[in-house]
């Protein structure tokens, strides 16, 4: 086999991944971009309307609510799942408890369970005929008790957020745990012998060492939360009213229930633009933080 030069090797390594990816994701999304400027009525494209779909969507209160709900999901992901993931990975890594393997498994478990199961189980517990509700009705002798938060315009998202926190923290825990292995154990031992506090070890050793991974995870968290669909769809389907609507649900409904490909495509483009903006923001923050560490 003739030896490849550096540039050819580069393309041999890169191209297989790149080509599959371009053909299956980037090409269709450009089709979507084109479609997002078209008007649809009665299952047919009826013409070009420029930014009409975008104007419609951006002035729709249901979309505003969806956007806000996605932002909440993003906040719980970046500020909840990631820190909790780090903490849990660290606790397990330091082996302060017996049976770390068992607990690793338990924390990992939620991501192996599909969202459909989680939603199903959740409802069996908290719905008006659920285990929890029945139990509270029994001990308080208030037969009208239901979990009111589900019907609250302001807080209906809260249960979804809690489940997301539980479900996805494990993802970050696994990533952080694998990366904590890269810090030689002698570093921790030395720090402990020097009498460093655990909080100091976390802020001075663990966080700087993990910072590239934290950045990667933040990107994952942001993109994942702006397109989250499965769990919300299975748990609430956007209800009650539209209190738990999210953008991907809005997209799904306009595309597949109301047959408006133009509007559906415009929503996916909006999601992409928003994510790009937010990720650039995180990248900026990350760059600044790195400078500080150096």
């Amino acid at each position, binding site marked *: 086999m003739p030896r490849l030069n550096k540039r050819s090797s580069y393309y041999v390594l890169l191209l297989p991944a790149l080509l599959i990816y371009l053909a299956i994701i980037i090409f269709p999304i450009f089709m979507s971009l084109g479609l997002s400027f078209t008007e649809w*009525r*009665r*299952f*047919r494209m009826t013409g070009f309307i420029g930014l009409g779909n975008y104007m419609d969507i951006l002035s729709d209160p249901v979309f505003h609510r969806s956007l806000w709900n996605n932002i909440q999901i993003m906040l719980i992901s970046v500020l909840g799942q990631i820190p909790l993931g780090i903490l849990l990975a660290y606790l397990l890594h330091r082996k302060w408890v017996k049976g770390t393997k068992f607990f690793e498994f338990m924390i990992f478990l939620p991501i192996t369970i599909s969202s459909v199961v989680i939603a199903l189980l959740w*409802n069996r517990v908290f*719905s*008006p*005929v*659920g285990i929890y*509700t029945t139990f509270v009705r029994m001990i308080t002798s208030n*037969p*009208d*008790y*239901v*979990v009111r938060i*589900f*019907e609250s*315009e302001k807080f209906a998202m809260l249960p979804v957020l809690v489940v997301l926190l539980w479900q996805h923290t494990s993802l970050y825990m696994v990533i952080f745990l694998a990366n904590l292995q890269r810090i030689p154990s002698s570093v921790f031992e030395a720090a402990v012998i020097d009498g460093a506090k655990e909080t100091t070890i976390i802020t001075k050793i663990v966080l700087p060492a993990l910072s590239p991974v934290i950045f990667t995870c933040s990107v994952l968290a942001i993109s994942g939360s702006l397109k989250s669909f499965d769990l919300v769809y299975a748990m609430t*389907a956007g*209800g*009650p*009213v*539209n209190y738990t609507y999210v953008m991907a649900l809005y997209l799904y*409904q306009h595309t*597949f*229930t*109301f*047959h408006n*490909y133009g509007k559906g495509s415009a929503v996916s483009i909006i999601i992409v633009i928003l994510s790009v903006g937010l990720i650039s923001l995180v990248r900026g923050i990350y760059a600044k933080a790195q400078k500080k560490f150096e």
Partner: protein
Amino acid sequence: MKKVALFALVLVLSMSFVTAAGTKEAAKDGKVVLTAYMQIDPANDQYAGHNAVMAAFAEKYPNIQLDIEYASGEAFHQKFQSMAASKKIPDLFTCYGGARTAYVTETGLTLDLTPYLDDAFKGQFASATWLPQGSAGALYMVPPSFAVCHSIYANTAILDKLGLSYPETFEQLVAQIPTIRAAGYYPMSMGNKDPWVVNSWLLGTFIERFGGREWILKAAKGEASFTDAPFVKALEVIQAMSKEGLFSPGVNQMSNTEADQEFYQQKSVYLIDAAWRTSAMDSQLPEAQRKAIDMRVFPALPGEKYHNTSSAVASEGFGIAKAVEKDQAKLDAALAFVKFYAGEEGASIRAQFGEVPSYNLDLNKFAVDVMQGKFVEFSATYPMGYVFDSIMDGEGVNLLNTDLQAMMMGNGNPKDIAAKYEAWVAKNDSNRD
């Protein structure tokens, strides 16, 4: 080297598996092969009749092979729409008379069956079977039965215990609430977590009671307005039901099945549900409990013009792809299937499982289970009105349902909701084009 050889072997094996296509198109021994896509769940008791019909069909027509793909729920439509967008749809498929599958019926992909169904065949069915479908008045499918969307199941054991009887009027129903609550029961279970429930199972019937079928057709076309009395009054009844505490607590966070569960556990006196729940009740409840369940319609509303109505819509049936018309053998096979399923043979089989077919049969000769029998009687007793969301466009109905749910939770009032819906319909609904 062993590892490499093993890896190569696995790779070759898996590639051959990868490239093997999944279709079994090859027609063996001159069989006619039809691909089919059905919105049916063969594992569910509700479709036991369907399974039996399919078995009988396979026996009678051994030369017709059906390659069926089953799917249910929203996913069915999502995939079907992708198929429609690529103009490649199966030979046979579930489709609706109303707007729900308009993406295949209104886009020229579905065969109009009108020329293939003669009057002798049509004459054997209930006349409502042949109401025109779609905007062009075609017949895309033969409805094998009617979906009855409104009924009230009453637990007479509890009613007797409390010394009550099924109310004649809405006022009487409301007056029962204190007695029922004092005894520790909930008056009425309904699962409105998916907000189409209150629309399909109550609103349509209420509008019909106040305005009759003519009114809704007029309103759809714009000759009447949704701000008119029949619509607003119907909304007011739903609001009153919420305010009077008729529904169980958490009606808007309870799924259909959960509402059933409350009623099955005998925690509530009445259940608002579709009439097709009877098959599930027969398989899940003890016989004594089933015998004590009465199937009724909503009591008389104050000022109603039409009495004792329920609501029903021609249920979905099987359509044939337009492209099949070019292949005579396939067309014959597809038509044979459609006629077998909806016609005498299919209908007799389905009737044994408690279905009430659109085909005219003497249902008394079939011995069916307790609740199924009650359903047969129910169908014969009450006049059937329309189902609202089979007439109006989905997007508007969705908007209305959401507002209705908000109203049931205390936000919004009938007049505003009606005005908002009328404005949407005037601007967007295809009925007003």
